[in-house]
């Protein structure tokens, strides 16, 4: 519970942070009280990352004051912020994979005598911290690299506790977790709150904020535009309006005309990969959107990547327009008219330090050439047109794509396949790391693509998203299709029931 009566633990007033050419923070106010989960909302580029870095002591401030328990403080470096009692858990966890759990927890403040590490003592302390977090199953001597994303997060939290942090800043902690793990995370967050620790929680997922948040602060264009909103009851429409500065009428655009009959554009028959999934069959007609729902690790991404030829199938066939694709060949799939927006946009989808237009034309390099000579002007023009048609902002095709927001980066990947005029588009987590405002735009683009006759397959961990976008839903559990039907005949509970039924069935078999 929030304690509105308690004095603020941390207070930021009128924070301004200037970078060459950009005013990244332009008047941020943030008040954090002990024992609350304070959520920070805002679109990409609103200044959340900069604010986190200021809190962590990685950036100094140009104007404004930071009060810690009423006393003005300033952080010269991350050590100073930690010493004050603010620990930050970054989205890309800053753990050293090759070191043990205990070594990571005490990294930078090792317990040592005369330069000799006191390993046993650190292991004991680490065990206590992990037990406090309810995760005594993580052994302090284990190598961090062998832990799951969830396990690593727990280690990061233990590290924050080892510093006696009173405020823990968490940047999108749930982005890499599946629903079970998120539940575990929230339990830990709840315990920390009960013990009087304040959590500054950053997430794009509104439903999470509703579950664990106490109060909300909303940032837009580097400034606080709303503060002290109740996290549980502020209407979604109001939040989106505050965040984006515009009203969102309908999040999921509906199909404008009934789906025309026709032979399937993509047809997957008995596809399988040993140890990952088996017997997956489905058809997608031109203009149809098929959604793959299921838990992380159920095999959804593996299926999509195998259809695309990025993984080699051990059984089954994939046909595009009736013609079988060569197994395990991305090149053949692309030539047949398939496209993929991969799950990990930055590592699998983009050449981050290259220009926007070159990222868009990446799949079409051969098309803008004559006898192997590239015609850069034509390529740039065509890519620019594609960028405009998906409304990438800013409209600057020469810009390095790394500097764009997640939503605009995703639009560039969509533009790549638009330019290639692909017939079948596979979208793996199309809105991961995309803010709420851009999400609606991407939904509209997906709808537009379908209306133009592209067959789409969508994978998403967000069940509402899959249900809202798709015409047909395949529920995947443990590497098999457990349900296949129209999306308007099932709701989120129905999807979960199918998933859970599979798990229970398995457990019964295990017993027998």
């Amino acid at each position: 519970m929030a304690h509105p009566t308690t004095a603020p633990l941390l207070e930021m007033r009128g924070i301004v942070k200037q970078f060459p050419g950009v005013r990244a923070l332009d008047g941020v106010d943030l008040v954090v009280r002990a024992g609350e989960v304070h959520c920070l909302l805002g679109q990409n580029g609103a200044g959340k990352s900069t604010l986190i870095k200021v809190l962590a002591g990685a950036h100094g401030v140009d104007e404004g004051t930071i009060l810690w328990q009423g006393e003005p403080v300033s952080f010269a470096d991350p050590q100073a912020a930690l010493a004050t009692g603010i620990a930050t858990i970054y989205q890309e966890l800053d753990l050293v994979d090759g070191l043990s759990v205990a070594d990571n927890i005490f990294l930078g403040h090792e317990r040592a005598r005369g330069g000799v590490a006191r390993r046993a003592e650190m292991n004991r302390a680490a065990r206590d911290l992990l037990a406090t977090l309810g995760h005594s199953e993580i052994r302090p001597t284990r190598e961090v690299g062998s832990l799951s994303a969830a396990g690593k997060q727990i280690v990061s939290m233990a590290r924050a506790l080892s510093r006696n942090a009173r405020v823990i800043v968490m940047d999108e902690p749930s982005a890499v977790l599946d629903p079970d793990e998120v539940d575990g995370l929230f339990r830990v967050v709840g315990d920390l709150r009960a013990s009087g620790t304040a959590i500054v929680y950053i997430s794009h997922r509104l439903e999470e904020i509703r579950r664990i948040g106490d109060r909300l602060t909303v940032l837009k264009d580097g400034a606080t535009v709303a503060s002290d909103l109740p996290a549980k009851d502020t209407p979604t429409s109001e939040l989106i309006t505050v965040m984006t500065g515009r009203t969102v009428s309908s999040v999921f655009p509906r199909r404008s005309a009934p789906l025309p009959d026709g032979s399937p554009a993509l047809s997957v028959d008995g596809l399988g990969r040993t140890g990952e999934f088996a017997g997956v069959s489905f058809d997608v007609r031109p203009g149809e959107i098929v959604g793959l729902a299921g838990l992380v690790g159920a095999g959804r991404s593996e299926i999509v990547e195998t259809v695309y030829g990025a993984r080699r199938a051990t059984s089954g066939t994939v046909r595009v327009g009736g013609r079988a694709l060569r197994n395990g060949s991305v090149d053949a799939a692309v030539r047949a008219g398939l496209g993929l927006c991969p799950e990990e946009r930055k590592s699998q989808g983009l050449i981050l330090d290259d220009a926007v237009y070159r990222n868009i034309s990446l799949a079409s390099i051969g098309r803008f050439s004559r006898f192997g000579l590239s015609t850069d002007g034509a390529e740039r023009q065509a890519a620019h047109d594609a960028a405009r048609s998906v409304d990438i902002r800013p409209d600057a095709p020469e810009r390095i794509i790394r500097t764009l927001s997640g939503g605009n980066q995703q639009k560039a990947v969509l533009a790549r396949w638009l330019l290639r005029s692909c017939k079948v588009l596979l979208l793996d987590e199309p809105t991961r790391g995309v803010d709420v405002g851009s999400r609606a735009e991407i939904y509209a683009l997906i709808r537009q693509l379908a209306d133009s006759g592209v067959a789409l397959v969508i994978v998403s961990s967000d069940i509402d998203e899959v249900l809202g976008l798709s015409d047909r839903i395949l529920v995947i559990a443990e590497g098999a299709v457990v349900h296949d039907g129209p999306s308007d005949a099932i709701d989120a509970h129905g999807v979960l029931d199918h998933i859970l039924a599979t798990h229970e069935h398995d457990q019964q078999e295990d017993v027998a």
Partner: protein
Amino acid sequence: MTSVQDPSLTVPTPRAREPRGSVGLARNLGLVIALVILCVVGVVTAGDRFASTDNLITILRLATVTGIIAVGMTFVITGGGIDLSVGALVALSSVWATTTGTQAMADDIGWVAMVFSAVLVGTVCGAINGLLVAYGRVVPFIATLAMLASARGLAEVIADRKTQIIRNQGFTDFFGAEPLGIPVIVIIFALVTMAGWFLLNRTTFGRRTFAVGGNPEAARLAGIKVQRHTAYLYTLLGTTCGIAAVMLMSRTTTGSSTHGTQLELDVIAAVVIGGTLLSGGRGTIVGTLLGVLIFMTLTNVFTLNNLSTSTQNVAKGVIIVIAVLLQQRIANRKP
């Protein structure tokens, strides 16, 4: 208390276009300035012995071997790889092309046979590197280190550690010629550099090289044949090693298993000084050319001032560090 400020309905205005390539230009400008300073030092310390046409030609003649390989190396490094075997490939190519057998063949069908065998040996060895790296998934550092050892070893076996003198008059005449006062090997160096620039900047092959080096996984998922392209890059570098071997054979009129010793260091240093990122994805032929010229001019100035090669090596090391530090400064300055 709830305070919601009025959310304005403004559409974000597109920011002004960023000047493209300004970073690259600044970097090349820095290299040009470095070269000019070096020339000034040369003129001041060695006077007319430095500032003469003959000396300029000497510098360029010496630059041919490193320069031609550096063009190939620019492709491999831009494509995200590295090749340590280039010096050894030069040795093997030069030895293979100057055996009694090859020279006898050259006497029968012409000196082209020697050129052909040198280029072929370089290309085949480069292709082996490429296959190992691309399809065998051996780390480039290790694959080419193994090639370094075995290629030089094979060169020693073939030559029996003896220097093989080139007796074919046609070969020495052709490559020793100086039409309009410019040595043929310098002309070849210029042609290779121009071809390299064209290939990297004006062809789909070049575009794919940047893509493969920038993010191989993204390139693969966009339908680019990353493995095949990687194999091509090492093969191309092998070919340039073969050509460079011919240049060295003409300059020394010998084939030897000691040719090109530690050449890989000079080549990689020149490419990196030229602004090609060791991590791949960015590279320029013009920068590489400037890097090679800086190195060669430096060597020349030191030699004219009678400084030992040991001193030269110290200076080279210092220059590499300074160049990389400057590169990082420039790279960090971008937003």
